[in-house]
């Protein structure tokens, strides 16, 4: 990007001569300068345009500078605007304090030194520009991360489906062939029968491992019969592989949820259990999924482990191994308009996710 983005600077003074002077001083900054002859006119501009810096006279008829500053600060959208007062009178420390208390960033007395005024305005114009750029970048990052998570889910689903469609039938055919052979064991010698028996075991192992890989990538029951059976099946498999005892409490009235909610909740639970196994040292885990309100689902995963490492009193920051998973969970939930809360002590960790769902979850028979 060659030229930098222009920001708007609003100059407010009831004397046209002064406005012309400020314009002459600030012109060289290359920003967009807007003139207002009164507090009211200034408010009109503020409502219509994104203003970076307001340069204003303290003494004006009708609405004076301080009153205008108060009105600006009351509006949430204007919190970040830099207000610079210029005054020929009201020059005591009390006046200055009064200005700063109203949220001013500077208080300049007349006569104005052009170079100083220009330098001060430049700092705040640049700050506004950078803040704006950061906000845009943040928004882009969020969009990108949401898209990455969705792509990752889709890719995992595809690989799991490929495994099911390509290796699955081969295993089934092998197993059936072995079954046919096993019916003929009397005709086979002992040695051959033993090899057949071994083959049967190999097929079973092959099948079990393929199944585990495929289920970790994407649980087949999730799409076909829903979140709760998929969580239950995953928890059973996890308990078997990790030797962590998992208790599961799922409210059946939840029923089927939109596919993006089902996959996100599943991934949150999966991530939590992975953390329990890798980091907590806990021998137990507890999963509870229940409606908190008619249209709010809560997902709770607890362990009795050593808790999460704390940095400066705050839970682990992004960048630690814990943090990457947590950021991922937060992003997933943010996408759904939900929240993630973590309570951690040396007695264990509880992760609570809240997810809004657009259908009422009512008890079904």
């Amino acid at each position, binding site marked *: 990007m060659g030229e930098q983005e222009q920001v708007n600077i609003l100059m407010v003074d009831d004397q046209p001569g002064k406005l012309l002077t400020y314009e002459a001083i600030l012109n060289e900054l290359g920003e967009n300068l807007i003139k207002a002859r009164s507090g009211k006119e200034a408010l009109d501009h503020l409502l219509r345009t994104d203003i970076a810096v307001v340069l204003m006279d303290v003494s004006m008829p009708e609405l004076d500078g301080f009153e205008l500053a108060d009105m600006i600060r009351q509006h949430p959208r204007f919190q970040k605007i830099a207000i610079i007062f210029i005054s020929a009178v009201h020059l005591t420390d009390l006046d200055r304090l009064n200005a700063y208390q109203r949220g001013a960033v500077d208080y300049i007395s007349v006569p104005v030194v052009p170079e100083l005024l220009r330098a001060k305005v430049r700092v705040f114009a640049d700050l506004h520009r950078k803040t704006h750029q950061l906000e845009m970048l943040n928004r882009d990052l969020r969009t990108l991360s949401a898209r990455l998570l969705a792509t990752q889910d889709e890719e995992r689903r595809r690989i799991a489906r490929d495994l099911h469609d390509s290796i699955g039938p081969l295993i089934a055919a092998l197993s059936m062939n072995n*079954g046919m052979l096993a019916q003929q064991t009397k005709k086979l010698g002992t040695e051959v029968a033993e090899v057949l028996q071994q083959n049967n075991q190999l097929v079973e192992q092959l099948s079990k491992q393929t199944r585990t890989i495929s289920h970790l990538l994407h649980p087949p029951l999730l799409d076909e019969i829903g979140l709760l059976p998929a969580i239950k099946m995953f928890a059973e498999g996890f308990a078997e592989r990790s030797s962590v005892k998992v208790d599961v409490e799922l409210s059946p009235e939840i029923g089927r949820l939109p596919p993006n909610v089902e996959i996100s909740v599943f991934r949150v639970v999966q991530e939590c259990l992975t953390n329990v196994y890798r980091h907590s040292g806990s021998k137990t885990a507890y999963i509870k999924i229940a409606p908190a309100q008619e249209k709010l689902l809560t997902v709770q995963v607890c362990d009795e482990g050593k808790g999460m490492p704390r940095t400066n009193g705050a839970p682990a920051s992004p960048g630690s191994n814990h943090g990457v998973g947590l950021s991922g969970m937060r992003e997933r939930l943010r996408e759904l308009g939900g929240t993630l809360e973590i309570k951690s002590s040396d007695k264990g960790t509880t992760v609570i996710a809240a997810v809004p769902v657009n259908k009422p979850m009512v008890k079904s028979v």
Partner: protein
Amino acid sequence: MRTRFLIVDDSELVRKSLRTVLQANPDWEICGEAADGESAVELFKELHPNVVILDFQMPGINGIETASRMSQIAPAVPIVLFTQHASPDLERHAREAGIRSVVSKTNAFPMVGMIEALLGPTNTEWGAGGSAGSAKDLAD
């Protein structure tokens, strides 16, 4: 009268293997094959099979949905779900859809014995009526 099987699986290899296994019994024959649930339901109506061997994960409607459509048409015909994903939860859903038995594709060996038990002393007749229950219902 020979027992007629309808085989439903999106994999040709699995259908072929099932054919080999089932046809080893001289009293059994394959009356039709389908690669997805929708066309399986059509064949079911047309061919009146005595037993259906059904895959779970298929393009379009899954095995559970296919089975419940078939059960509404002829509840007495036993349906066996033949799947890579056998689990207690899937079995519960399968039962609700009128499926008599779930067999794991990775351990297909018990299938033949299980079908024999399902068929009982007499073959299943179309229009025999009755609800999908144990294999005993079919003997009436």
